[in-house]
């Protein structure tokens, strides 16, 4: 526990240690970008939700549903969730490797390059420049920019791994590795196209091939942009917030490898009963069902990390957010395999159920994991207490209610559509031959979804207020705290390998508080060490390895 290590006197010569610092500013930048783009992306989503039951809300050529929909999906996936995972990666990788990011310059290039990409998406999509491929709508110049920024990110990340002072990579880093490699492969593979204008191109694939490549990409954008990095986030921040080691090291190995292997196969379940070969659709379905187990491995490892610590939920909005987030992860990763079973898919495909499914994942898992992380990071990054716990709690409740209203209304609407489309009357004719009947029927559900989305957005606004007010109270300058590490790399036996979590050994993955030398040396004397859960002004932690440990 942190308290037991606060009064230890150092017994090590200065020559044995080196002093370094973590780049905190880059995490702050990504956190701010997450919050700003989250607000924008969800606002666009709410406008779309209004446009469906109330078409008069289509505000002209540039703000009609067809053009705004890709803007919404890109904004929430790549701007909101994207900046959130970068915040998580930059914060946790440095600490798990006990080293600063390899290059501050590359970190800044990544940050500003990514924001530039988002802005160019926000301009080109309403102008109608789109490839039409879902989650890969951005036209070729922006695609190239994404590849460049991603490569810089990858170099920076892997060079940081190389510079690490901790021998073994903690499980969060495995998931980051899988994310960085796979997104690069998917992005390049799916965006191969011949330009025919500044913002126009034709893909090198046609028809069935194009469909398969697109959903190989599309499904795995969900897998490797919205799942694996968030599992990495979970593996770092959940044990930190719960002050518990991860439940099972073995489970983390098994579920990591099975998840990254199986996910890739699942893409064709988006194309069941289309002209793609039957075998491909069947393979996609079978692997989707198999995917249920590794997905739940992650959920179990997350939820069981809280064993013996459930009482902490009462006082911790961070843990509450995480628990609901992981629960929605479990629900949507059960739902996903179910929807890929052919007979279920026959009913649900093309309906609003799909929309409900993705929002259970996006609002529940991605959103709440992000919110939990931000509420945990805010006081640490800005070295000041959260402005309002009450407001954060209100965010939690209104957000949860919003998700439920959203998701349930889409389930009802989706099942209604599916059943009406396939209904026959007694004479064997279509019961609802006029498609319009099935549209009019679900409009009340579209209004309900609008209410659910409004609640969720209201929660987002509460977060924005809390962030602004917390930052307003923060010190004017926030210099990076000095860290101390032994000169030699820390070996396996003695270190926690940077693994977060405290207390007794779980099933092996997380050791006690990382005992690599760390010390806080801020001028204010505030302890902002990451191993410490609550910043305690006035205390100073110095905890050095004994020379014999090397």
């Amino acid at each position, binding site marked *: 526990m942190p308290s037991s290590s606060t009064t230890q006197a150092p017994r090590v010569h200065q020559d044995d240690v080196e002093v370094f610092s973590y780049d905190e500013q880059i995490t702050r930048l990504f956190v701010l970008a997450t919050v700003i783009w989250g607000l924008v992306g969800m606002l666009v989503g709410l406008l779309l939700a209004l*446009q*469906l039951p109330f*078409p008069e809300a*289509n505000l002209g*050529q540039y703000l*009609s*549903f*067809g*053009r705004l929909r890709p803007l919404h999906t890109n904004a929430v996936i790549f701007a909101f969730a994207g900046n959130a995972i970068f915040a998580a990666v930059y914060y946790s990788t440095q600490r798990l490797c006990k080293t600063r990011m390899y290059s501050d310059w590359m970190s800044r290039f990544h940050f500003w390059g990514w924001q530039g990409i988002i802005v160019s998406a926000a301009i080109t999509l309403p102008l*109608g*420049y789109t490839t*039409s491929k*879902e989650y890969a709508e951005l036209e070729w110049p922006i695609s190239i920019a994404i590849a460049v920024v991603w490569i810089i990110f990858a170099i920076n990340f892997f060079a940081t791994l*190389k510079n690490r002072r901790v*021998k073994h990579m903690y499980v969060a880093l*495995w998931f980051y*590795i899988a994310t960085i*490699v*796979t997104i690069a*492969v998917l992005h390049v593979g799916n965006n191969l196209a*011949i330009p*025919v*204008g500044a913002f126009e191109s*034709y*893909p090198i694939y*046609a*028809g*069935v*091939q*194009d*469909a*398969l*490549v*697109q959903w*190989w990409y599309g499904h795995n954008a969900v897998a490797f942009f919205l799942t694996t990095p968030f599992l990495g986030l979970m593996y770092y921040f959940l044990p930190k917030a719960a002050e518990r080691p991860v439940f099972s*090291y*073995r489970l983390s190995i*098994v579920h990591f*490898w099975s998840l*990254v*292997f199986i*996910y*890739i*196969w699942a*893409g064709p379940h*988006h194309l069941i*009963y*289309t*002209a*793609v070969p039957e075998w491909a659709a069947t393979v996609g379905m079978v692997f989707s069902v198999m995917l249920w187990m590794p997905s739940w491995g992650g959920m179990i490892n997350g939820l069981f990390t809280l064993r013996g610590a459930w009482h902490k939920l009462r006082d911790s909005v961070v843990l509450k957010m995480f628990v609901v987030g992981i629960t929605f992860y479990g629900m949507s990763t059960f739902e996903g395999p179910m929807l890929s079973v052919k007979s279920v898919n*026959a009913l649900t495909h*093309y309906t609003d159920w*799909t*929309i409900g499914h993705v929002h259970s994942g996006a609002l529940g898992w991605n959103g709440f994991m992000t919110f939990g992380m931000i509420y945990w990071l805010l006081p640490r990054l800005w070295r000041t207490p959260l402005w309002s716990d009450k407001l954060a709690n209100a965010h939690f409740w209104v957000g949860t209610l919003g998700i439920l209203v959203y998701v349930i209304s889409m389930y009802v609407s989706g099942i209604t559509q599916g059943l009406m*489309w396939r209904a026959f009357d007694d004479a064997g*004719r279509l019961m609802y031959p006029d*498609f*319009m009947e099935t*549209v009019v029927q679900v409009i009340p559900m579209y209004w309900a979804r609008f209410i659910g989305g409004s609640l969720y957005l209201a929660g987002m606004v509460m977060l924005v207020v809390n962030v602004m007010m917390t930052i307003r109270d923060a010190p004017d300058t926030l210099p990076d705290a000095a860290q101390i590490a032994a000169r030699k790399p820390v070996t396996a036996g003695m270190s926690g390998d940077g693994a977060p979590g405290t207390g007794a050994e779980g099933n*092996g993955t997380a050791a006690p508080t990382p005992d690599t030398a760390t010390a806080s040396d801020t001028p204010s004397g505030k302890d902002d060490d990451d191993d410490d859960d609550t910043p305690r002004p006035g205390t100073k932690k110095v905890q050095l390895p004994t020379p014999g440990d090397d």
Partner: protein
Amino acid sequence: MGRFIDKDGMHRSLEGWPLVFTVLTTIAILVGGLVEIVPLMLADDAAERIETVEPFTPLELAGRDIYISEGCVGCHSQAVRPFRHELERYGEYQRAGETVYERPFLWGSKRTGPDLARVGGKYPHLWHVRHMEDPRSTSPGSIMPPYPWMLEQDANLDVLPRKLRALRALGTPYSDEEIAQATALAEEQAAEIAREIEQQGGPADLASKQIVALVAYLQRLGTDLDAAPNVENELSDASSTASGSN
């Protein structure tokens, strides 16, 4: 298994080798995609060919690009599934051979509105003009956004030679003449459609407008399958492809 995942097992060593770890991860994520996609790339697509399926005309291509640009695919699928209720509602189910000139594919994943794969010829041109101008005028209760600017803005036909050339480089069989004359061919077809719209009682002078290109595209959708007399043979070929026995 135990030796591998124990606390001091082999995986523990692997965690100390980021390069090896990354290589193994890369292999793990490549396998599935390769197994599913490569056979399709290598397959002889002659088996899927349907003789009556022709490339889009230049004007239809321009209309298709408008369809893409407006994000129509967000609400309209173009892939009829082989269920009785879909056959009754929309028409023939989708054949692989029909999609060989679709760059990109526009099958969609949502039906907020109806499937459009077989919409060609279902309504007169004028219906589409009115519908795009104000969807609720032709379809009371519709929640589709209106697109009145399509009747006012010119379609960009000058870029068509470049587009056709790019598509030919990718394998669409456009002739040299078609590429050279692409803009003229498009204007010719547009004039014909505009004339028909006027005959049906619609507004005059639409020939250069986006709406005509879009109408050309929509009226083409799904019609190739029935375009020739020997369609029976083609159908049996295509359906065996669709059911995976190629």
